């Protein structure tokens, strides 16, 4: 069906080609700055693809039809000029472009506005900036390219989820991710189901988008920019425009075929540094079954009896590097663009095949797309955007999962020959051989556990654009976003995660078959009225209606106990439980947007939107959100106009209010499926019903309320855009303040009330931030260009209040008893919370145990109560983007600098606990900790006994008993400076290519994450185990980020 439409479309467009009477035009193009001629300027007849290019002397000749009315002159870095054809000789002086000012930006609801008219901050990223690093994940490719946009990846695994935030998180437990809008259609970008620290990660759906399809991305950061989207806009909007073939006309060509192939090779950025002195065992005694490496010195062991009863000489094995292989990412894409007076389109197909740094983790993705517009008549345009993606991800068990292969790779004792010894017995492949019980041998886990998911997705929209009279446009867009994720997580018979290693014969095993389906419809009608008093006032008014409806169904069949090893059918399990969740929501919104401008000096804009929301109580269902913004281009005042120092300057200010609705089905307390100790706690399974032949229900722990209303986010923003030094310096500065009040969150209740939490509107989080975008063009000439763009952003958010009686709530790492990510009144959001060193109040120093009888004599004491340890958010983030062009060669480099911020390191905690990290290598040197010494009296008060003078050794007791008991000991600063991307692009000279009928051909090479400076030990601080709003606060033996090198070729016919 779609193919037929496509062919028809092409045919219709191809038929159009008419020629009439012609005449010749000629002239010279020069620069208004210095009067020198400009070669290479594109000259075309307005409204056609007919055109030419100025020669080395800046002169051009062009044959045009009699009917031609005007010529368009365009050149990179110059303002495009339209000149009416009044004679046969037309000379033009082009003015240099004021950086970014004349650009037309796609704003909310697809409304195109000149950047200079905006009263708020918007930042654009071009498609090539996103794709040149060869990153197949769109969200990750955004990192560092937009001031205020922060991307946190969960791991370096292909298809791993990412958390994207714009201007930080302000919702305590709700959604903090921006809305993604592709070609006018809001689409899903988040992970569809929650995961905890022991589960496999679930892919974020932004992965389905092919970065190569993107023409540009506009990030609407503040609420004033995004308010038209209503409820969904409180975290900013990422407006994506895909390639559509428009803009092709300048080259005077009707069609263009582009082939693009790239290959990148990945390696881990950081692996832990391990000790190589001590053997497996505990308290200095070798034990071939221990998980600990507190055994004897390997050098003093000599021959010993290993786990299999064989005699073996003690030596050190490298167990870590064999697990890593070079990851490969191959991307191939072909697309066709077409443009004529009748319309334009782009269609293409792309395939990305990525294998991870640990096999079998992998991702492959097929994308097919069409985006086009057809001019039915001079008044009516019709268009369609259609995207199909098929994304297949193979994952690895992660986090505290007992099948996580990295866990016992990193922490395998140095004396254990993980890669030389068999990982299972000869007679039973499901009976594992491993240095420790319960956990899977990593090689076995990689071979037998199998976690896969595939998502098939169709999204897109159809639109009609009706322009009956010059002052009015009617636009209707109907969009949909449908996807189905189908997956199977198989933990094989005998797998540690399912308790399969605890019995004499392999047991356990689990198969989860799951299906998640989501359908979204979106209907959007808008009418735009325009009015103008020439050279004085311009005004526009848009009225619109948006309805969206999202339905989802998540079906899981969890089969426990695999009967026949190796047979992965759900019927091959002893018992099955079925879980189903369905969700529905609908939002009906009406909106307006009124703009008025005076002489290009003052721009005023206001928007309003009223939403009616299904998942709020009936009496609190309808909400109105306003915004106002103003821009003042003060350099247009006569006194300042055309001054040389500051050719352009604008002040802007805005205020907006938007909301965020709570979770679905939030108004009635319910009963849920029964179960005993079946989540959290010590047991993997507990009791699940039906049990003993009977089903059971239990009252839900959540107390619901009918008094809910949407969360309210108020944003105040002001800023200035300045252009200096003949436009070689551009500075955009934004200052903002956000008040997020009436937060909808589960307020923890005293459990003695019989409920765990109550869903309420409460609490306030404020955010204050600054953003700079500084663009420098130090050199701009025919053969050499240099552009530096610096994105700087910093923000501080603060939990002002929660609710009466609660000074903190946990927002991440729910299943970890010792440590959590919390919202804590008076602190930044989130903070890492856990046990702390006992400190002497006067000196601030830590206190060590002065009780000479205690095994922990001279070692740090733990404070009585847990408390906030450190902020997660960085102090600031800077992205330096450098781009050089030397003739045909373009070199670009991005450097990211993150300063401050903290993360709890599960990797370091475990590595120290097990005695595996290099820090535990020195177990004999006496140390005296810089501390006070003291003890606890009978009433639990600290008594300081003086300055510490107690010598200790940093051995098993120190690391495994004392330091591992103090969360604070393994919280580290996440500061890093990294060379994010380097890309080289060489355009082959046209002279070589024209005989081959090739318009352009470029070869390119890129590197990603090639270099990093950080003090964070043993891990890449950019990855963190994904747990929603706690993301960024923790890592727990995740796959490290990858560094890559690659190359590619792009050919345009």
């Amino acid at each position, binding site marked *: 069906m779609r193919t037929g439409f496509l062919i028809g479309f092409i045919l219709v467009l191809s038929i159009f080609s008419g020629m009439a009477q012609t005449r010749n035009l000629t002239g010279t193009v020069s620069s208004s700055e210095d009067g020198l001629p400009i070669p290479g300027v594109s000259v075309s007849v307005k409204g056609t693809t007919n055109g030419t290019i100025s020669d080395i002397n800046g002169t051009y000749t062009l044959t045009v039809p009699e009917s031609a009315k005007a010529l368009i002159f365009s050149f990179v870095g110059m303002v495009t000029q339209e000149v009416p054809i009044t004679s046969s000789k037309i000379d033009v002086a082009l003015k240099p472009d004021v950086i970014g000012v004349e650009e037309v930006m796609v704003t909310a609801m697809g409304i195109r506005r000149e950047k200079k008219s905006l009263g708020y901050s918007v930042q654009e990223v071009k498609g090539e900036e996103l794709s040149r690093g060869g990153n197949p994940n769109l969200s990750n490719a955004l990192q560092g390219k937009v001031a205020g946009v922060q991307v946190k990846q969960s791991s370096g695994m292909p298809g791993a989820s990412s958390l994207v935030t714009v201007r930080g998180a302000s919702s305590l437990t709700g959604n903090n991710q921006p809305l993604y809008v592709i070609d006018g259609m809001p689409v899903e970008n988040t992970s569809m189901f929650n995961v905890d620290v022991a589960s496999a990660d679930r892919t974020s759906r932004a992965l389905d988008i092919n970065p190569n399809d993107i023409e540009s991305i506009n990030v609407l950061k503040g609420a004033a920019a995004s308010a038209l989207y209503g409820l969904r806009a409180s975290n900013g909007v990422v407006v994506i425009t895909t390639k559509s073939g428009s803009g092709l006309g300048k080259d005077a060509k009707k069609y263009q075929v582009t082939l693009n192939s790239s290959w990148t090779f990945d390696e881990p950025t950081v692996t832990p540094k391990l000790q190589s002195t001590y053997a497996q065992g505990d308290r200095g005694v070798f034990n071939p079954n221990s998980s600990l490496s507190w055994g004897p010195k390997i050098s003093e062991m000599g021959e010993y009896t290993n786990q299999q009863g064989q005699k073996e000489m003690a030596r050190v094995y490298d167990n870590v590097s064999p697990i890593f292989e070079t990851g490969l990412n191959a991307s191939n894409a072909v697309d066709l663009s077409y443009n004529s007076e009748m319309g334009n389109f782009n269609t293409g197909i792309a395939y990305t095949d990525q294998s991870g740094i640990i096999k079998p983790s992998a991702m492959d993705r097929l994308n097919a797309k069409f985006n086009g517009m057809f001019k039915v008549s001079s008044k009516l345009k019709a268009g369609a955007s259609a995207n199909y993606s098929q994304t297949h991800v193979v994952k690895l068990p992660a986090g505290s999962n007992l099948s996580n292969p990295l866990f016992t790779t990193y922490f395998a004792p140095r004396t254990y020959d993980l890669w030389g010894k068999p990982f299972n017995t000869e007679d039973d492949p499901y009976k594992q051989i491993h240095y420790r019980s319960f956990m899977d041998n990593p090689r076995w886990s990689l071979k037998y556990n199998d976690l896969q998911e595939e998502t098939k997705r169709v999204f897109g929209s159809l639109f009609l654009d009706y322009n009956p009279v010059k002052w009015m446009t009617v636009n209707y867009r109907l969009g949909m976003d449908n996807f189905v994720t189908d997956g199977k997580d198989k933990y094989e018979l005998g797998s540690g995660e399912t308790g399969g290693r*605890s*019995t004499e014969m392999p047991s356990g095993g689990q198969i989860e078959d799951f299906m998640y389906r989501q359908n979204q419809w979106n209907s959007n009608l808008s009418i735009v009225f325009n009015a103008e008093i020439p050279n004085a006032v311009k005004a526009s008014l848009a009225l619109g209606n948006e309805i969206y409806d999202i339905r989802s169904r998540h079906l899981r069949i969890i089969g426990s106990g695999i009967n026949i090893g190796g047979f992965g059918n759900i019927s091959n399990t002893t018992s099955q439980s079925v879980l189903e969740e369905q969700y529905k929501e609908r939002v009906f919104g009406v909106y307006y947007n009124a703009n008025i401008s005076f002489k290009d000096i003052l721009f005023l804009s206001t928007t309003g939107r009223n939403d009616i929301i299904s998942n709020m109580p009936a009496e609190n269902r309808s909400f109105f959100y306003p915004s106002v913004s103003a821009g003042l281009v003060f350099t247009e005042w006569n006194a300042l106009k055309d001054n040389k120092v500051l050719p352009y300057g604008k002040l802007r200010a805005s205020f907006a209010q938007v909301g965020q609705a709570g979770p679905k*089905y939030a108004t009635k307390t319910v009963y849920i499926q029964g179960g005993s100790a079946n989540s959290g706690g010590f047991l993997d*399974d507990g*009791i699940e019903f039906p049990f003993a032949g*009977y089903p*059971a229900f239990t009252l839900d722990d959540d107390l619901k309320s009918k008094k809910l209303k949407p969360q309210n986010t108020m944003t105040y923003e002001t800023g200035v855009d300045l252009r200096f030094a003949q436009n070689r310096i551009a500075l955009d500065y934004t200052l903002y303040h956000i008040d997020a009040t009436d937060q909808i969150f589960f307020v923890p209740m005293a459990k003695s*009330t019989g409920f765990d939490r109550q869903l309420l509107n409460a609490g306030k989080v404020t955010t204050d931030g600054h953003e700079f975008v500084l663009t420098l063009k130090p050199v701009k000439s025919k053969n050499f260009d240099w552009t530096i763009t610096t994105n700087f952003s910093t923000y501080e958010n603060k939990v002002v209040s929660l609710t009466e009686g609660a000074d903190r709530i946990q927002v991440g790492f729910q299943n970890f008893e010792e440590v959590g990510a919390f919202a804590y009144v008076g602190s930044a959001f989130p903070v890492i919370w856990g046990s702390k060193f006992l400190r002497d109040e006067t000196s601030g120093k830590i206190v060590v145990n002065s009780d000479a009888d205690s095994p922990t004599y001279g070692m740090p004491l733990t404070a009585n109560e*847990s408390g906030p340890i450190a902020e997660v958010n960085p102090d600031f983030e800077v992205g330096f983007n450098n781009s050089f062009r030397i003739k045909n060669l373009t070199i670009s480099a991005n450097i990211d600098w993150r300063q401050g911020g903290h993360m709890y390191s599960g990797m370091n905690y475990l590595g120290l606990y097990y005695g595996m990290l290099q820090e535990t290598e020195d177990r004999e040197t006496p140390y005296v900790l810089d501390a006070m010494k003291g003890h606890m009296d009978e009433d639990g008060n600290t008594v300081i006994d003086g300055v510490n003078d107690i010598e200790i050794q940093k051995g098993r007791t120190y690391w495994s008993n004392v330091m591992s008991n103090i969360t604070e000991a393994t919280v580290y600063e996440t500061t890093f400076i990294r060379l994010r991307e380097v890309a080289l692009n060489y355009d082959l000279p046209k002279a070589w290519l024209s005989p081959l009928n090739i318009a352009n051909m470029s070869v390119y090479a890129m590197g990603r994450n090639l270099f990093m400076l950080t003090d964070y030990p043993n891990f890449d601080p950019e990855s963190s185990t994904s747990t929603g709003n706690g993301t960024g606060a923790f890592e727990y033996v995740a796959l490290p980020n990858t560094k890559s090198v690659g190359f590619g070729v792009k050919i345009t016919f």
Partner: protein
Amino acid sequence: MKKLIYLIAALLIVSCSDAIMDEIDTNPNEPEDVSINLLMPQVTTNAGFTITANSLSWYSSVFIEQTCGVHGQLMDADQRININSQTFNNDWTYIYLDQLMDLSRIIQKGTDEGNWKAVGIAKILYAHTFSIATDCFGQIPYSQALKPDEFPRPAFDNQQAIYTSLQALLDEAMADLEKPSAGTLTGTDFIYEGDAAKWKNAAWAFKARLYNHLSKRDPQGSATAALDAVAKAFQSSADEMKLDKFTEVATQQNPWFQEEADRGHHSLSKTMYDLLIANNDPRLSRWFTKINGQYSPGKNGENQQDQSGSLYSKFTPELLSATTAVPIITYRELKFIEAEAYFRKGDLEKAYQAYQAAVLTSLADNGISADDQNSFMAQGSVSPGKDLLTLELIMKQKFIAMFPFQSIETWTDWRRTGIPQMQNIYGSVPRRMPYPDDELTTNGANIPSGITNAKGVWWDDGTED
């Protein structure tokens, strides 16, 4: 064209009417109300699972050295590490959210519906749950608990008052069980299949246990009251209260078995080993595995980590399998209570009879052959005669007889009597569990201050803090 516009406008407006929006907002996943028969399997399971035989029992077990903690949190517990406000959050959930809230719903619904049998059962389980909670934590919310609208931050009641209330509640429960009851209740009661008479026996058993807990506060009164209750409670092990529904399926197994399979935190302790080997106890071989032909106990606090069971003796399938029943309160416990109470009253004759019956019941309950029972009982160290009977002997044998599942009760016994002698070098046994962080953060103002793990609960040291 105009008609089309009207049609579209009408469609748009209808699409967001309250009726349609309400329909969309109807929860298709979870019900708003369920019957008593759907709640009863949950609460009767909890009674023998999360309340009696979960982490409270595992920590108690290593505290009093019935087992040795050989890995993870329980090895930490033996080294007195991480016994803090983070440790018992889950248990507070099991007690208040999972068990007591559902029980209070059954009491409410049963009262409304005239299902007095369900009300009686629920009140007994309610008393059972609160008694475990207060024995572990001391003062806890009782009178204001489980009423979220009225008391969002419930006050903490004194343990003495709670004990009085629980006795009264058990009496109420027995009265309810006498009333004619509407509704049927058989298979969904996993403990006694709706047998009111057996539930009444169980209520008397709990009354006996709770009276006996007051041995330090009122030695004589508590003994008299306990003996009176014992007489009306179980007459044999067949009457005992237990959860015996476990299967081999992973999600239906005995909780201790699951803990061993998932975590492997326990092993034979030296304290237990010393008690068993002293009398050549046949339960040693019945209960524990050998390592290289030898029983290998871990000494609490000084042992090495041994999750795999390669260093220290673990449990035999006879002691612990997937389907082993979890006792909640037993006939043998009552016989030990009887022995202890008579001993307190100075009636050595009856104390000795009850003691011998208690030990024999334990041996029989554990499948020890008649010959082995006889030769064990024949030893002078086991049967010294009534005049040489000591509290130490009674409590040591009770320590063994209550193994492994009833460690919370054994911890209570130890706190009351100090028997047997502990061996852990890492300092004294905690005398209570620290209040969990969840309650501290939400109800901190009401939590008694100045409490440390070393301070006894009211029946232990006579003070509430």
